[in-house]
């Protein structure tokens, strides 16, 4: 074979290999969408959504608020991120702050009505620590009403500030909520479809996180079911991937883009 022909054959072979490699990973290098900030909980979260071939839907269920990105013609493959709004709403800190700021502009009836709405939930506590904090907040709020009727406005403010101090001193932890939010096949509609896999500690945007790499058996094929949970600024979040190994890198790239903007007054 002449040398020039030999070179051509090598070049053609290399080009063919490159083409094969790119065909095997058609979407690996597909850029994510520009970063967006979501305010599902008091702590905003920012991340780059997956490419537009993953269409999005709002996700509001099970005490969470979030967004689900569903792969077009992907046979049920999706990436979702969500915040646990119901957990965040258990702490009345923000509502106490608001009431302290506007108490002078309210009538007596309005003020007492607002105070009654501040009571921390004591049913089904997340932990013993949360139960103690809730009881302490409610004791301070009970004193608000009695001091108000005793004509002691100074004491009323002190009681509200005491409730605020206690509420501000508590932030839920990942350990407290993990038993409630991680996958329990026996609690699912069809428990036999789930296979628990590997659990590991990881990090999301510099914050400690828990990850679980499980499997979902669908009628068509088994799908990876990977979950990551973390808590930032007293708000819990999850990221879930349900899909094939081929699209798992897209999930990881979305997760790697997660950041937590500072809480501004406007977003509180």
């Amino acid at each position, binding site marked *: 074979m002449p040398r020039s022909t030999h070179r051509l054959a090598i070049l053609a072979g290399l080009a063919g290999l490159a083409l094969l490699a790119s065909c095997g990973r058609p979407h690996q290098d597909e850029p994510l969408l520009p970063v*967006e900030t*979501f*305010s*599902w909980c008091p702590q905003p979260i920012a991340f780059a959504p997956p490419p537009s071939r993953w269409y*999005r*839907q*709002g*996700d*509001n269920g099970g005490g969470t*608020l*979030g*967004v689900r990105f569903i792969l077009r013609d992907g046979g049920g493959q999706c990436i979702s991120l969500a915040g646990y709004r119901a957990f965040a709403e258990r702490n009345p800190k923000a509502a106490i702050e608001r009431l302290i700021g506007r108490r002078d502009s309210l009538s007596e009836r309005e003020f007492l009505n607002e105070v009654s709405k501040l009571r921390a939930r004591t049913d089904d506590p997340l932990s013993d620590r949360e139960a103690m904090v809730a009881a302490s907040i409610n004791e301070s709020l009970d004193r608000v009403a009695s001091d108000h009727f005793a004509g002691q406005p100074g004491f009323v403010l002190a009681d509200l500030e005491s409730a605020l101090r206690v509420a501000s001193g508590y932030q839920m932890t990942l350990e407290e909520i993990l038993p409630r939010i991680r996958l329990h096949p026996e609690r699912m509609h069809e428990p036999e479809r789930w296979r628990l896999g590997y659990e590991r500690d990881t990090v999301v945007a510099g914050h400690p996180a828990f990850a679980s790499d499980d499997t979902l058996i669908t009628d068509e094929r088994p799908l990876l079911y990977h979950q990551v949970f973390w808590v930032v600024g007293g708000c819990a979040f999850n990221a879930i991937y349900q899909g094939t190994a081929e699209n798992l890198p897209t999930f990881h790239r979305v997760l790697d883009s997660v950041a937590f903007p500072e809480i501004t007054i*406007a977003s509180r």
Partner: protein
Amino acid sequence: MRRAEAIAALSALLALGAACSRREERVARDYQVGVHQVRLVAPPGWEVIEHGRQHLFRKDQSELSLVDVGPTNPDSTAPQMTRDQKTAYVLGSFDPSDRKEIAQREDRLRQGRVWTEVHTWSRVSHTDPARVAFTEAAGHFLVLATDYGPIEVTGPAFDSLLATIEDRSDRATPR
């Protein structure tokens, strides 16, 4: 030969008629929207429904509205509203729920007035984009909004309409 000439003349007449009717659609018209005396050019093909304080622009299943949402200072004893408060007031007059959030906001000078243009979307998923723009004249807010229909249809109509709205209220006596 004569027949050909007649056909040509008829075609020319028809073309002229069509062109005239198209031009007619783009003619500016005056409307009274609440206290606002407004001159605007409706987007081609959009029907204008005059409802006094609220005028609707409809095409198929899509709708825009131009509304006088009320005084810019409802509580005369309160200090002047900030830009954020004005935006919240105007958006609240359309959808009191907290399902929408502001994706983008900018002030632009149009036809001699400052319009605040707001792009909103679903707070949860950043889907369902919508548009709202407002200005102040004669002590009242004048608001243009996309009501319903796909943004691919309502967005261009919104831009087209907004570019032509001239609020002439300050030249007229408010009702």
